[in-house]
């Protein structure tokens, strides 16, 4: 079976003062369906850039990236937007909900861009909110919800489009310990249901809850181990 993510010899950098500053150096990474991978590394290690590449938000200078059978480097901006919409559910550190929209409208957003009918959107959004236990708050605005609830709305938004990959960038970074634990519990639950999850963090305790840990340091992949929990 083809892996969900296949990164080969990916390098990325930018020019500064006539010198090339490497950010990612010759990264190769394969992730199969159903895996739960944590990418760890200190800030400045290049893990955020790697996440942007995996999330199709940016294209690398060199190397190959195949996501669910698509060669991402060869796609136009609009095709990339479609890949992000259909293949990836983003969970951000700062939630990134739209403040003017209610919870259910935020969850509907990716489905709008997918072009689903109003009725189907509504049904799937409500179902996703039920999954995170927030269907009673569906008409609340983000500022009427606690941090943990906002992150659960964001998770529901990631789930609503039923993408093969959930990409979480420091999902507990903006939460206190207890709510962070709740959110992690929920992410583990999603993994148990069969979702493929890639989680970016600098927190080793969080990373240890994943089945596989990949360490990035100075743009190099330095460690790739499996947790035997």
């Amino acid at each position: 079976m083809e892996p969900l993510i296949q990164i080969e010899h990916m390098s990325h950098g930018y020019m500064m003062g006539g010198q090339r500053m490497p950010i990612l150096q010759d990264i190769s990474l394969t992730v199969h369906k159903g895996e739960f991978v944590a990418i760890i590394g200190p800030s400045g290690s290049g893990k955020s850039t790697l996440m942007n590449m995996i999330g199709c938000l940016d294209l690398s200078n060199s190397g190959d990236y195949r996501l669910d059978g698509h060669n991402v480097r060869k796609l136009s901006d609009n095709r990339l937007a479609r890949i992000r919409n259909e293949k990836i559910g983003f969970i951000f550190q700062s939630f990134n909900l739209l403040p003017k929209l209610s919870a259910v409208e935020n969850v509907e957003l990716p489905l709008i861009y997918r072009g689903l009918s109003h009725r189907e959107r509504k049904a799937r959004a409500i179902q996703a909110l039920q999954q995170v236990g927030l269907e009673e708050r569906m008409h609340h605005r983000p500022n009427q919800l606690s941090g943990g609830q906002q992150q659960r709305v964001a998770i529901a938004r990631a789930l609503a489009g039923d993408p093969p990959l959930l990409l979480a960038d420091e999902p507990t970074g903006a939460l206190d310990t207890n709510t962070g634990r709740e959110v992690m519990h929920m992410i583990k639950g999603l993994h148990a249901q069969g979702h493929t999850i890639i989680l970016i963090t600098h927190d080793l305790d969080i990373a240890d809850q994943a089945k596989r840990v990949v360490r990035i340091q100075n743009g190099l992949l330095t460690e790739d181990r499996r947790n035997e929990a």
Partner: protein
Amino acid sequence: MIFFQSIRMALLSIIGNKIRSFLTMLGIIIGVSSVILIVSLGLSFNNQVTDQFGDLGTDLLSVNIFGYGAVTSMTPEEVNDLGHIPGVGGVSPTITGSVTAKNRNRNTDTNVEGVLPAYEYVKDFHVQRGRFLLNIDNQYRQKVALIGSETATKLFGMQDPVGRDIRLNGDTFTIVGLLKAKGDSLMGSNDNKILIPLATAERFLQTKGIQSFEVKARNPQNIPAIKEQLQQVLTAKIGDPSGFDIFDAQAMIQSAEKTTALLSASLAGIAGISLIVGGIGIMNIMIVSVNERTREIGIRKAIGAKKGNILLQFMIESIFLSTLGGSFGIGTGLGLVWIAGHFTPFQIQYAWSMVAISFAFSFIIGVLFGIIPANKAARLRPIHALRTD
């Protein structure tokens, strides 16, 4: 579907910044309302002018002989001869004076005009009771009179004046007819006057010769040709083209229309410039809005919005701002026109064509001045947009 969502988002964003949106629209509101006000007033004024000159008759030429030089007047016979000019339907000479008219203890100052029976046809001015002046009245210098409706009310109240006697500067005249009410024209009241036979007037007002007469064309189209003929005949008779004047209502209407059209076009042009300034205001605020919402754009792009989706959203917002401003402007403009109609004697005319044009124009402004900000938003790269706070 995305279209409706975009409209909704545009509305939310406009409502979310009420004061800012209002100030942004203000330029368009002022521009559109002044265009509508100016063009409506111009149109109303034009109609007013056309009506008033039209009341004088577009098939009439009024001739005045000024009374300097060798020949200062014409005889009634000479004036009558002008009826032979091709296309002329009738000629009506007039001698005018002022008198004090008296009925027992009531009196009023009024104009008296000595006229011929042709007056009825030329001026299209008829009696409502009694009879008009006849040739025989003129021939025998009868002291008979027609009385205007307003003068009749002043002297006789509600009583029927026909058959009664009045005294004009001490001479007794018998009223044989009551004129129809005609209202006011540029030349003054039509209803506050007394008509007597021309020959009677010559003696009564101690005036010899005609200095004022009107020529009626059978068809308004003949007026320019008749005017030319008249010009030649009168120049030959009087010897000097500046010794007389031929007033032509048609020509007056045309020149007045030209003037007001030019005036309202230039004023509307200035107002149109303010519309463009308003459009720049919209562009400015849209750029601010794009900058403020960089993060929102990043989020939308991350979860799958294409360039076109973002472009559409911001274009709709800009078009919404400008057409909403345009609609407010139309409302304000029509309101101002209505108020102007209440406080001026004008019969007000709403410039409906301008309402449609301004709406279309404000729509176009929304499109034109929305393109740059919307394009800026659509071209933001998601990672840069997401990194912004």
